[in-house]
């Protein structure tokens, strides 16, 4: 299978008055055509910053310090504005977190999707645009007659569907979904998740799905990347992550997550809080909270490397981990 996206050693800082915040540090991952990668981690772990860096939508104080983002053989980091316009929405589209704020309240949904179509596809007639929107609305399970309504006339679930329709409008190869269901009720969330997953498979799109909720990630991802304090700490196929969590943080995250299925097991607490990224701890950033930390963890940053020692061409397969003392065969 061919790679569609390759991120290498991405490092990103936010400059603030207090100093540089090391939001993303040396993150690498690869994405195959049609593959869905779930990025999971707590607030401030850098998952949303990665999404914004991929789209080059970072705020002014967000600087990509190092690394490259190869999309179809071109480096997104080096692109100028006109090149970005060609890539955004057509190659890579984003489904934003706050559906309430993703639309302008004074324009109808159809006007806003038309605007995106015109900007990214160039000359498109109003009739063509409406035809396209009709198709898109059907695709995401919305009544096409609703396209001339204003965002406030939509419920939260409908609005999220409209955001997805807009993201799909230029048939992107990659869709980046940043917590698209976080504000929704569980029944609506379930429907949207199923819809996203079905569309992703049907249209054979690659997807990067970002969430703090490991249960949601488990539902939509072929592959899972676990992030902590700006670094990727573990990445593997979904089943592998759940069956053999090897980084102590992955293990702790899963042990802390309550489930309604199965026997009620005791939840495990993780002591402490995530570090301040203005002054991240030296060595492994997880070491202050890690029960297995040794001297080497406090001094040297562990490399992100394959568990089995096999070198592969890319990171789209295999089990990778950044840890000096990985767990082996610990039952949850």
């Amino acid at each position: 299978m061919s790679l569609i996206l390759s991120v290498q050693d991405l490092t990103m800082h936010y400059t603030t008055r207090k100093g540089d915040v090391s939001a993303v540090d040396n993150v690498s991952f690869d994405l195959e055509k049609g593959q869905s990668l779930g990025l999971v981690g707590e607030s401030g772990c850098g998952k949303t910053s990665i999404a914004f860096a991929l789209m080059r939508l970072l705020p002014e104080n967000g600087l990509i310090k190092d690394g490259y983002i190869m999309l179809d053989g071109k480096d997104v980091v080096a692109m100028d504005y006109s090149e970005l316009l060609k890539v955004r929405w057509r190659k890579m589209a984003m489904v934003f977190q706050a559906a309430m704020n993703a639309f302008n309240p004074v324009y109808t949904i159809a006007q806003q999707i038309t605007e995106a179509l015109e900007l990214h596809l160039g000359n498109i007639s109003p009739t063509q645009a409406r035809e396209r929107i009709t198709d898109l609305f059907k695709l995401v399970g919305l009544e096409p007659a609703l396209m001339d309504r204003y965002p406030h006339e939509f419920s939260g679930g409908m609005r999220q569907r409209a955001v997805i329709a807009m993201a799909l409008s230029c048939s992107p190869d990659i869709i980046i979904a940043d917590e698209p269901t976080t504000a929704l009720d569980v029944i609506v969330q379930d429907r949207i998740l199923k819809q996203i997953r079905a569309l992703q498979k049907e249209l054979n799109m690659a997807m990067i799905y970002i969430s703090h909720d490991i249960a949601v990630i488990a539902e939509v991802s072929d592959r899972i990347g676990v992030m902590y304090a700006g670094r990727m700490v573990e990445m593997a196929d979904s089943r592998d992550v759940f069956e053999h969590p090897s980084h102590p943080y992955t293990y702790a995250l899963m042990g802390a997550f309550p489930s309604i299925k199965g026997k009620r097991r005791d939840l495990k607490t993780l002591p402490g809080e995530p570090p301040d990224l203005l002054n991240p701890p030296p060595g492994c950033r997880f070491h202050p909270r890690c029960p297995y930390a040794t001297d080497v963890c406090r001094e040297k940053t562990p490399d992100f490397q394959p568990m089995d020692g096999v070198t592969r061409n890319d990171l789209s397969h295999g089990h990778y981990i950044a840890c000096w003392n990985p767990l082996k065969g610990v039952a949850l």
Partner: protein
Amino acid sequence: MNAEAITMTDTALVRVEALKKHFPVGGGLFRRAKSHIYAVDDVNFAIQKGKSLGLVGESGCGKTTTGKMLARLHDPTDGHIFLNDMELGKVDLAEVKGTQLKTFRRRVQMIFQDPYESLNPRRTIFDTVVEPLAVQGIGDLIEREERVANLLDLVGLTPADTFMFRFPHELSGGQRQRVAIARALIINPAFIVADEPTSMLDVSIRIGVMQLMQELADRFAVSYLYITHDLAVARYMCQDIAVMYLGKLVEMTETEELLAHPLHPYTQALISAVPIPDPRVQREAIDIKGGIAQPIDPPARCRFYDRCPRADNQCRDNDHPPLEDKGGGHMVACYKV
């Protein structure tokens, strides 16, 4: 019915009877409201001493309104809230007024969802936590300081003296929620309404706060009404769960029983929609039609009628079904069970 009418054998700490809250819509200063939102409509439940009840439902189902009535932040439209308390005896909270209300606030406290909103940014942690003692006129300054320090230690803000004179913006979300818990516990309440206390917190922080709340419940013999949209959290916090839909309780029973054998079609749909943190598990899909509406002047039929996969004429022609024991204390409000 008044307080004396409850039988002496009633051991429940809190007993809610026919509780209602109707909000007027469309009314004005000189104009009567034409319609009402039936936010809470004829709700009955009991919480035993030392046990916690989870109130679960989607946004807009009336769970927060119920909680606020129990803390008397809303006045009920109708109904009774009996508190059977060692200090106060049996009182109907729906009817307490004036100074009695102040005494009652000593016994019932509330923890809010958002620790960024619920703490005054201009007051130190000490000021925030000590306020209930000051309002109730308990102890002198030295005693109060001692109590605050002890409690901060208990909620894990140690060492207490380094936290006492900090401001909320210096604390993380988890620490702030611990302050809110300390404030609720400082006057030894018998009962705490906790409205989504952990939903704003990150996973690794959340479990710590949940475990703290459980430890404190055991230590101080306090009961919670735990309001949440997350069934998985309710499973870990509560002995019993009540499921609410558009102002009505539709199902109520012991937690594990509810999760293993949900009987009401809404509960079944709700449980089947919860994602499972395990890619090997395939969930069975139970979908219900449409979306949640607002209960504005609802017609006299089952509230779930429009979305229910099992609904028939009986559900349409009769009023909302009563919450009945379908065996072993498993209460369900459905004609089709």
